[in-house]
């Protein structure tokens, strides 16, 4: 399980250099190579997938033609609900008699849960990381615009050692303004599609996509924005245990689909400070800071 403590750190700050030992991971999988393992990890898939699909926009305004650029960083924080901190685990192997118990997920209590069997035998379910939040920080670059469209890119990579390999994040997205077709004035509408990929060596692969309808309205130096969308995410974890060559292979889908987002952007000259809250199965708060050019000046002048 120690591997997953390390993994969480990586997922949180993306580019941290941390010590990582195969043994830590093996201590986890020696217990969780089965259905328990998938249930233990599922909340991570939900939270991380939702984070990946966030912090991608802060206005729906896209010029019809001309230079428009935003470079910044978005920090997303998924709030871990109490319901995602426990699951019903089942004893495995030759523990006798078979029993079920409510035990921690990866975000649950750090206390190991041990249940007693025949003859003073005990089955121990690993504890979690005792987390209420899962943050993720990601750099963003948005460039436009051509025919009312812009392009968003995300990229980060860091090599954390030969045992695990490289942590890598790549994402892209395109948006198209609907103001080209609709007689709207200071109210802006756009549709967007975003794709994200995250990997940790050959062990972790995460993907996410988001399609949404975005709207925004400028008022003085503030832009109110929001979106409704549909999202999808997956988290795949694969590892071969050195002890007996057994393999874990968790392919998990994030428990997220429809989402609604409401937010504010403070236009402080070229400095853009934005925050939004997403209502979905996995709720989260986003905070972003960056430099934007040609994004709102014309809009504010209007």
């Amino acid at each position, binding site marked *: *399980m*120690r591997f997953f*403590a390390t993994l969480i*750190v990586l997922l*949180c*700050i993306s580019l941290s250099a941390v010590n990582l*030992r195969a*043994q*830590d991971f093996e*201590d*986890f999988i*020696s*217990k969780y190579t089965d259905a328990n393992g998938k249930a233990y990890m599922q909340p991570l898939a939900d939270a991380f997938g939702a984070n990946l699909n966030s912090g991608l926009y802060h206005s729906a305004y896209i010029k019809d033609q001309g230079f428009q650029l935003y470079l910044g960083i978005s*920090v997303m924080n998924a709030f871990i609900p109490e319901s995602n901190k426990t699951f019903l685990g089942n004893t495995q*192997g*030759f*523990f*006798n008699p078979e029993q079920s118990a409510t035990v921690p997920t990866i975000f649950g209590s*750090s*206390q*190991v849960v*041990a249940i007693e*069997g*025949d*003859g*003073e*035998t*005990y*089955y*121990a*379910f*690993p*504890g979690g*990381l005792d*987390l*209420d*939040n*899962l*943050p993720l920080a990601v750099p963003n670059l948005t460039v436009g615009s051509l025919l009312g469209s812009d392009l968003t890119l995300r990229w980060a990579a860091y090599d954390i050692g030969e045992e695990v390999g490289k942590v890598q994040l790549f994402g892209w997205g395109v948006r198209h303004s609907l103001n080209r077709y609709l007689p709207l004035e200071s109210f802006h509408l756009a549709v967007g599609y975003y794709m994200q990929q995250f990997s940790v060596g050959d062990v972790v692969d995460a993907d996410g996509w988001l399609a949404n309808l975005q709207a925004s309205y400028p008022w003085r*130096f503030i832009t109110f924005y929001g979106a409704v969308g549909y999202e999808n995410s997956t988290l795949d974890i694969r590892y071969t245990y050195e002890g007996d060559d057994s393999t874990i292979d968790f392919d998990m889908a994030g428990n997220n689909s429809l989402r609604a987002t409401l937010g504010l952007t*403070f236009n*402080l000259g070229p*400095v853009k*400070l934005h925050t939004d809250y997403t209502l979905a199965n996995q709720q989260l708060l986003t*905070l972003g*800071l960056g430099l934007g050019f040609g994004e709102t000046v014309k809009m504010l002048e209007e």
Partner: protein
Amino acid sequence: MKAKFLALVLGAVLLAGCEDRTFEYVATVSQSLDYTVDQEGAFDQTYTVVANSFNDELDLPDDAIIGDVFIEALSVGVKELSGNEASAVKLTGSAGGINFVEDLVVDVATGTYEFTVMAGLIEEGIRRMRDDLMGIVESGNPPSIVFRLQGDSDPVAGQRLNVDVRIDVTVTVLYAVETEFPAL
């Protein structure tokens, strides 16, 4: 006003740091006890688990703080070798001189081991096994544990036995490690 607001937010973001947190881990190892019985009638054999070998297999981090050791389960399989005449064996096992199972009847399988739960475990013997393993994990003392296996053919005693007996002991070690972790 805008500048102050910006500084406040930036400060809040940058203040998020790390803290030392203690996490509990669960390491599980399976220790196989192997016995080859090739004789007529009652047998009495031992298998010695050496502390250093067990700890090497466990391979805990150097900074691990041992919390507890559990015996999770025992399973047993008996595999037939050429010339065997018994259809089952009756087993009594002990660790450190105290029985953890008595007169357990296990069918002899042909070809490969067919492991079954070792039922009817005796608390006193399991407790002794657990205490000895705790000592091995914590301090390497005792330097070894002798697992003794006695038995005979069943239901007819005294038959020709030529079998491999394997007992798998699943051991769980709870340990803690202090780790630098983001303050979340």
